[in-house]
């Protein structure tokens, strides 16, 4: 059951050992920072475009490349080497220090906050403080005055510090030097601290590695250190300083910067982050402050001109962003501000740029593994590629929180209005370098649980009385340790076998469930897949049926398998239908398949038992024969009517009869109007939009589907729906069952084999092949003080605590919102334990446990410093999208805006340093909140354009419901990649640009993707050569608009673009169909819809306008 560990030495927790070891040695030696360094560099560079322009451009390049190698390969060698160097440098890293410093100044508020919480910090900070302050001040000043222009540059990730500095540069360009200057300075000071810290920290770091290492017995010693390590952090909390030091350590590169700009400088800052991650949170955002540092900058940038004048006043406030409300009338979302001039006055470059933030984080944190050993660390952004080392907390791939430091009291929480939510993806797929959770088999006794709250054994449980008992970390109940589980404790109170047992040392692991965890006290039989194919006229005519049958023949060889199983345990069955259902007996002993027609759709049942669900390899011949015949049999069909509910009913009954869980794949084409239960009528009425009745468009037409879904859930029957509509099919109703059963919906409007074949087949393949759990129940337990109160996602709940998922795959997330029901304790923090009981594809009953420890704070600043905007947006989007079911869309939008304003106002009021009311000050971690929120508000669901159909809205609405953070991130803020800017030889993705028309150059070609759509935009004056080498036509005018495939040409550009498209597709859970859009073409409207920073046709505000509006809202709240 071991996780896939390649290295024998390391038993269970197979983290990528190779990497690890590498890390240990190098990084530890050199400290974690080492890895980071490269990134940081990047960050630095990245952040400031200006930089690049000036001296650094080369630098910026370099860093990424450096990053790339380590990340991708994660090879010890490279990394090590690099690290080694960095290592020390890191320690010294001024940059980090600078960063901190910057933070300090930047967000004075932070600074203060941190001070309060952590005694140690202050000291640290101070030291930093001075240097940074100076630097920042200058920078800020410059920036502010200069105007918003600077701001964008700053965003270099949270570390932001860099950015702030960058700001200056950007704006003034001069800043560059200044920045640099500042850096070094910063470094110096930090050094001292860093060292001090280092001393302390090293152990920590070493610990984590060891932790990982403990897998290898060799590290017998390590345990100890590790122990200490964790402890330290714990203590450390207080001492953000500690963490800081880490950061500090990273800085050393600074030295480099001068020398080798590339590696050196960039390196340092990021390391800090990465290394900090653990530390960071501890430190509080204070450390982030740096990030905030940037904020201040932002502040400055924002206000652009007017405010700035005032800005100087609050020198330190620099960090915060200011907007002068007076100067800028805030635009209403819908009605644009009358005074456009003002808008013009704000330089778009001066407002926080998502691109910048993403790039910075990538550079700063992408190259070093994220080690989960420390409580409350904010993980890197979802857009960053990073490795995770599980050292006691669940990987961010499984759980992401809106905040990693949550208020101790509900009053604070209410004040801040920051939703406390976790986005949980229990079966998330991990990159190959990371090991999947280790499976623990406790034999007949089953997993050890707390007697009172039933929480499962986890690393946070405290063993007492020499190991004879343990205290539950969730409810504090003291439980006896069963004899067979007894183990002695070492001098630190930890069990001697802690590192031999995943459940005592890892954040995520699995238990084998005993029969008590099974339905009817019977071990489940292997699940089944049932393919249910619409064979009505539309499906036949479009070629769908033939295509599908052909594909299934080979696809059935790739059903999900477990572990090293030779063949899948999953059985398959086939049903075709129009207004009656046809079941097929494909028993292996038959010479020919047998078809059984059930016309009694009013009272659906399964006509056969034996031979319906079969093993693919046994019945291959019969199945092939069937798939050959299906298209022929219905080739002449004239039946246009279809049924729908009976089809699902049938599949469910079939699973029930076979006594197994499973999944239905439905391929459906039209509104089910045939006389049968679940019959629907066309109720598409655009007149309802923007009325109180709009919500009905999102609600199902009939309750029948809910009832049906409930039955499906009870049977563990998940439904995946592939829709091929030519017109309205009422997705809102049809998707009810998939939605409630943990299934997926795919929609291919106006399906035509020639155009959509690839997309459909690719989606189908992925959907069929993906690993999936069945008949699952998820329960989220929390330590006393908070409670899971609300859940979003594709599932069904029959009570208030258990999330029932008929099926759950690696793409589905459940978002859980928490509320206080008592006081939390800063000391003990807050714990989450997500337990998922499910049946694997081999029919094994398992429990997957994810644990996550969060910090608790009594200072709001800590909260703001540890937030994750992407996750926040994920939650808010889901909340809003559910809201449209019950409230008018306008109300939903207003609620969102209000909440966002409250969050920011609370920050301004409680955390930001006093400044003019005219300034817009955003917390560093949330500086993208406005832009992202605006994207949510402008999304099709909340503000539909004329071309958006009701079905599309319903479709998107339910898609978003189970999206993870990475998906929502790109979905709401699409990626726009220029293709010809970077040299063709470069292997990496070109840096993205902001999604705005202003950023498009008509001499360039761009790719835009949002996870669902992929556009290739061709500027009107693109070089002919480029056109030739991409499209194989001689001029722009000859490019076919709407083209969906690029010709396969043997030239570097073509290869690169196609390669890029492929890699983008590979990153997404759904295949994105390419659409080639020519500038000034009709299709461009479609494309422009995704340029989310611009004002949209449907009335959505531009980023700038929205920011102003937000500012106004905040001011109102503050006054």
């Amino acid at each position: 059951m071991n996780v896939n560990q390649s290295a024998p030495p390391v038993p269970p927790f197979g983290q990528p050992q190779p990497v690890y070891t590498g890390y240990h040695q190098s990084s530890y030696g050199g400290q974690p920072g080492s890895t980071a360094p490269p990134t940081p560099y990047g960050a630095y560079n990245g952040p400031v475009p200006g930089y690049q322009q000036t001296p650094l451009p080369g630098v910026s390049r370099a860093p990424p490349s450096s990053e790339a190698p380590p990340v991708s390969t994660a090879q010890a060698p490279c990394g090590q080497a690099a690290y080694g160097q960095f290592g020390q440098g890191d320690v010294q890293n001024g940059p980090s220090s600078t960063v901190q410093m910057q933070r300090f100044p930047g967000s004075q508020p932070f600074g203060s906050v941190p001070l309060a919480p952590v005694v140690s910090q202050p000291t640290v900070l101070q030291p930093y403080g001075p240097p940074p302050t100076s630097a920042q001040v200058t920078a800020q000043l410059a920036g502010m005055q200069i105007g918003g222009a600077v701001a964008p540059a700053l965003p270099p990730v949270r570390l932001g510090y860099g950015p702030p500095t960058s700001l200056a540069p950007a704006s003034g360009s001069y800043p560059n030097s200044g920045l640099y200057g500042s850096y070094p300075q910063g470094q110096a000071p930090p050094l001292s601290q860093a060292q001090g810290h280092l001393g302390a920290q090293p152990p920590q770091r070493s610990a984590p590695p060891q932790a990982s290492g403990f897998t290898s017995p060799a590290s017998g010693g390590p345990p100890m250190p590790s122990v200490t390590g964790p402890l330290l952090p714990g203590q450390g909390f207080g001492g953000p300083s500690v963490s800081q030091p880490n950061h500090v350590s990273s800085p050393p590169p600074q030295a480099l910067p001068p020398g080798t700009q590339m590696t050196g400088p960039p390196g340092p800052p990021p390391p800090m982050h990465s290394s900090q991650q653990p530390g960071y949170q501890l430190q509080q955002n204070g450390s982030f402050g740096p990030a905030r540092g940037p904020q201040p900058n932002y502040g400055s940038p924002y206000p652009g001109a007017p405010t700035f004048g005032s800005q100087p006043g609050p020198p330190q406030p620099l960090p915060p962003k200011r907007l002068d409300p007076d100067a800028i009338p805030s635009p209403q979302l819908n009605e644009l501000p009358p005074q456009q001039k003002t808008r013009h006055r704000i330089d778009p470059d001066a407002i926080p740029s998502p691109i910048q933030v993403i790039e910075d984080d990538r550079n700063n944190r992408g190259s070093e593994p994220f080690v989960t050993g420390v409580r409350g660390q904010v993980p890197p952004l979802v857009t960053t590629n990073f490795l995770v080392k599980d050292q006691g907390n669940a990987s961010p791939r499984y759980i992401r929180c809106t905040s990693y430091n949550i208020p101790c009291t509900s009053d604070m929480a209410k004040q801040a209005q920051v939703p406390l939510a976790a986005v949980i993806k229990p079966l998330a797929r991990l990159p190959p370098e990371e090991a999947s959770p280790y499976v623990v088999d406790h034999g007949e006794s089953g997993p050890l649980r707390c007697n009172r709250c039933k929480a499962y054994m986890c690393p946070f449980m405290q063993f007492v009385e020499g190991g004879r008992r343990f205290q539950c970390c969730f409810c504090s109940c003291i439980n006896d340790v069963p004899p067979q589980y007894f183990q002695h404790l070492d001098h630190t109170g930890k069990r001697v076998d802690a590192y031999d047992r995943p459940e005592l040392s890892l954040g995520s692991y699995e238990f084998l469930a005993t029969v008590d965890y099974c339905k009817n006290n019977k071990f489940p039989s292997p699940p089944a897949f049932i393919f249910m194919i619409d064979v009505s006229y539309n499906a036949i005519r479009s070629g769908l049926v033939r295509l599908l049958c052909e594909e299934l023949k080979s696809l059935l060889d790739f059903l999900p398998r477990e572990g090293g199983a030779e063949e899948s345990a999953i059985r398959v069955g086939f049903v075709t239908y129009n207004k009656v259902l046809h079941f097929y007996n494909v028993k292996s002993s038959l010479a020919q398949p047998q078809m059984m027609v059930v016309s009694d759709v009013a009272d659906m049942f399964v006509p056969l038992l034996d031979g319906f669900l079969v093993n693919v390899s046994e019945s291959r011949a019969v199945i092939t024969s069937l798939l050959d015949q299906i298209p022929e049999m219905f080739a002449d069909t004239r039946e246009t009517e279809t049924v729908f509910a009976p089809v699902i009913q049938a599949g469910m009954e079939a699973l029930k009869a076979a006594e197994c869980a499973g999944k239905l794949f439905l391929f459906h084409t039209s509104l089910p109007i045939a006389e049968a239960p679940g019959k629907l009528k066309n109720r598409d009425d655009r007149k309802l939009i923007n009325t109180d009745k709009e919500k009905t468009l999102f609600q199902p037409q009939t309750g029948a589907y809910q009832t049906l879904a409930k039955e499906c859930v009870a049977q563990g029957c998940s439904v995946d729906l592939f829709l091929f509509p030519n017109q309205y099919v009422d997705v809102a109703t049809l998707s009810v069952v998939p939605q409630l059963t943990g299934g997926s919906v795919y929609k291919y409007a106006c399906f035509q084999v020639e155009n959509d074949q690839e997309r459909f087949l690719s989606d189908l393949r992925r959907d069929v092949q993906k690993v999936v759990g069945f008949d699952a129940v998820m329960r989220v337990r929390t330590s006393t003080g908070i409670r899971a109160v609300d859940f979003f996602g594709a599932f069904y709940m029959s009570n208030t605590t258990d999330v029932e998922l008929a099926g759950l795959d690696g793409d589905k997330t459940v978002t859980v919102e928490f509320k206080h029901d008592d006081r939390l304790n800063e000391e003990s923090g807050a714990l989450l334990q997500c337990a998922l009981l499910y049946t694997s594809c081999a029919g094994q009953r398992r429990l997957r446990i994810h644990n996550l420890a969060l910090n608790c704070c009594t200072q709001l600043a800590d909260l703001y410093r540890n937030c994750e905007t992407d996750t926040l947006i994920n939650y808010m989007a889901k909340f809003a999208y559910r809201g449209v079911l019950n409230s008018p869309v306008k109300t939903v939008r207003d609620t969102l805006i209000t909440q966002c304003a409250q969050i920011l106002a609370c920050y301004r009021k409680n955390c930001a340093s006093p400044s003019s009311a005219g300034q817009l000050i955003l917390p560093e971690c949330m500086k993208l909140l406005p832009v992202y929120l605006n994207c949510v508000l402008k999304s099709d669901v909340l503000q539909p354009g004329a071309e958006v159909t009701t079905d599309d809205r319903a479709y998107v609405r339910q898609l978003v419901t189970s999206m993870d953070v990475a998906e929502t991130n790109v979905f709401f803020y699409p990626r726009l990649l220029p293709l010809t800017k970077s040299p063709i030889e470069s292997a990496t993705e070109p840096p993205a640009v902001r999604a705005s028309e202003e950023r498009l150059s008509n001499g360039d070609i761009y790719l835009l993707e949002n996870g669902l759509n992929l556009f290739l935009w061709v500027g009107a004056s693109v070089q002919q050569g480029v056109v030739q080498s991409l499209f194989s036509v001689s001029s722009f005018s000859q490019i076919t608009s709407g083209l969906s495939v690029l010709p396969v040409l043997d030239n570097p550009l073509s290869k690169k673009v196609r390669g890029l498209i492929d890699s983008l597709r590979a990153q997404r859970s759904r295949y994105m169909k390419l659409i080639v859009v020519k500038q000034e073409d009709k299709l461009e409207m479609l494309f422009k819809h995704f340029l989310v920073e611009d004002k949209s046709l449907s009335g959505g505000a531009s980023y700038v306008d929205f920011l102003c509006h937000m500012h106004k809202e905040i001011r109102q709240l503050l006054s």
Partner: protein
Amino acid sequence: MATYLEFIQQNEERDGVRFSWNVWPSSRLEATRMVVPLACLLTPLKERPDLPPVQYEPVLCSRTTCKAILNPLCQVDYRAKLWACNFCFQRNQFPPAYTGISEVNQPAELMPQFSTIEYVIQRGAQSPLIFLYVVDTCLEEDDLQALKESLQMSLSLLPPDALVGLITFGRMVQVHELSCEGISKSYVFRGTKDLTAKQIQDMLGLTKPAMPMQQARPGQPQEQPFVSGRFLQPIHKIDMNLTDLLGELQRDPWPVTQGKRPLRSTGVALSIAVGLLEGTFPNTGARIMLFTGGPPTQGPGMVVGDELKVPIRSWHDIEKDNARFMKKATKHYEMLANRTATNGHCIDIYACALDQTGLLEMKCCANLTGGHMVMGDSFNTSLFKQTFQRIFSKDFNGDFRMAFGATLEVKTSRELKVAGAIGPCVSLNVKGPCVSENELGVGGTSQWKICGLDPTSTLGIYFEVVNQHNAPVPQGGRGAIQFVTQYQHSSTQRRIRVTTIARNWADAQSQLRHIEAAFDQEAAAVLMARLGVFRAESEEGPDVLRWLDRQLIRLCQKFGQYNKEDPTSFRLSDSFSLYPQFMFHLRRSPFLQVFNNSPDESSYYRHHFARQDLTQSLIMIQPILYSYSFQGPPEPVLLDSSSILADRILLMDTFFQIVIYLGETIAQWRKAGYQDMPEYENFKHLLQAPLDDAQEILQARFPMPRYINTEHGGSQARFLLSKVNPSQTHNNLYAWGQETGAPILTDDVSLQVFMDHLKKLAVSSAC
């Protein structure tokens, strides 16, 4: 005219008719005093090798209320080319084709020997025969296998152009589509849901061409192949297909947990079969052949639940009103039977199981439609296999011995009216001048529908003399009755068989002797038995027996010769002498006694009793007992316990069973192996003789009887002992002495006691 016996026999051979009275009392009052009603047993399609069908259509009386067919009894004016209807006295012109007739050039229908004549109708489209198999798959493996083989075998016996269809059922009902190439296709129905005919047809996709079907019967042929093509196919086209399909039939795959009966949806299966034919081939000869191996356990028509611990209803339960499903199920099947009859199709039931299969509830399906009912222990027995094979036996012309969709019309001269019929028929509710207000059996009509019949199918038809006492029939007047049977011959021709008979009227007061002499006691016994059985279906057993007793006593009072209050003086004439004995055995028969029989068995026996001809019916009432001994050639002996002797072999034929019983000594001899010794070859022959005779009976009879070979003291000897007249019982053993016979352990009265009582009651003036 020789003796009445010969007359009766001749008539039966020529016309297939046996009247209870061959001279008819001329007034209503007198007729009622005869006790036994004026009635006849009619075998409409009695095989007449000597009767070639005529290839033209019959000539009808032009009076619309009469429409009697020209027959030998009509008076003909050859010169004027006129004929007078002998029923309504209408004078009719001969049709043009008859211009050439004269005294010497008569058409067949005017010749006296053609009192029964068969016309072949050339009009109309001929539609092939249809056989729809409805097969239970909840069988044991070997049972199913045997059934599959029988079915496959039957395909080779069908006419090549016959249409066949297949429905299988278990928990679900599957209607197999036979036309598909490659993939075999079936429509599946839930076995628990009662579907209307329309729903069924909708679900089978039969409704679209509904319009043309109902309106344009003639235009049908083009439509039909399309509509029904999927389910009913000519055998020559899908022979191989269907054989394979049958071969691949699996047992119902749904698991049956211990202590449960398999879920069997017979009710729905039948309903779908009926609906299918109704929608595709109404009024065309078709057989629905239901093969079932157990009781319906779910859905409409369920007879018993699936819990094995709850046994299927017994007569005891029924009497106590404890059979929860019976009424509902019966109603369901009656509804189906009536629909089937309306469509002119028939339903056969082949039920093979050790336990009951619900024949009681389903009986009407066969009874009302003229279908067969076969009951056996297993499909894997020769009883079933041969019986089933015999369905497809052919007559001397090479035609199947089956006919479909018949209507029987009875016309009477005005002194008579028809009161009803008892047999495998339903009323067509045709009122007419000759319909009596009194009903005996299925009455109130002059026409009946017999959806399936064979050459031995026999109906009892009851008449009422309506002539008033004060309007005597002129001397020498004759009453006439015409039976017109239109049917679809197995060759798919439409045919009309016309039998016209006449009998003399006699004044009962002055000519009682004549009437008495013309009494056909055998026919009378069977006709009375049919009435009794008919009553028993709806009345309590004892009431029926009382009624029968009273009728018998009245008959004896009327026709016996005795002195009042002197039982010893009682005598009956020859023509009545056997009648009381028939009644005695009838009283003990399973048709009226349910003791020791399950409801299914009773239904089965009654079913056959109501359709067999006179000879078979008599065997059923009073089994035949032959004795084989060294004393002489085989001889019939009294059905009496005194006939059971140690040195005899007995062969009893009860119609349903053939019992060979070896007397005590014979059995010992055989045990000792004498038959194998060359010097005792005669013993071997003796042993063999009854076996050969039994084989002969077995070969000829449908359904094949149960064959029992037993000996003295054998457990199966009970079949014999329960039938014989218990003249010696444990009660009177010593009184009778030990010299003969075997004592029967019963409290039943013996024939002797019965007769004593009868005499006493007959001579008593009290009643």
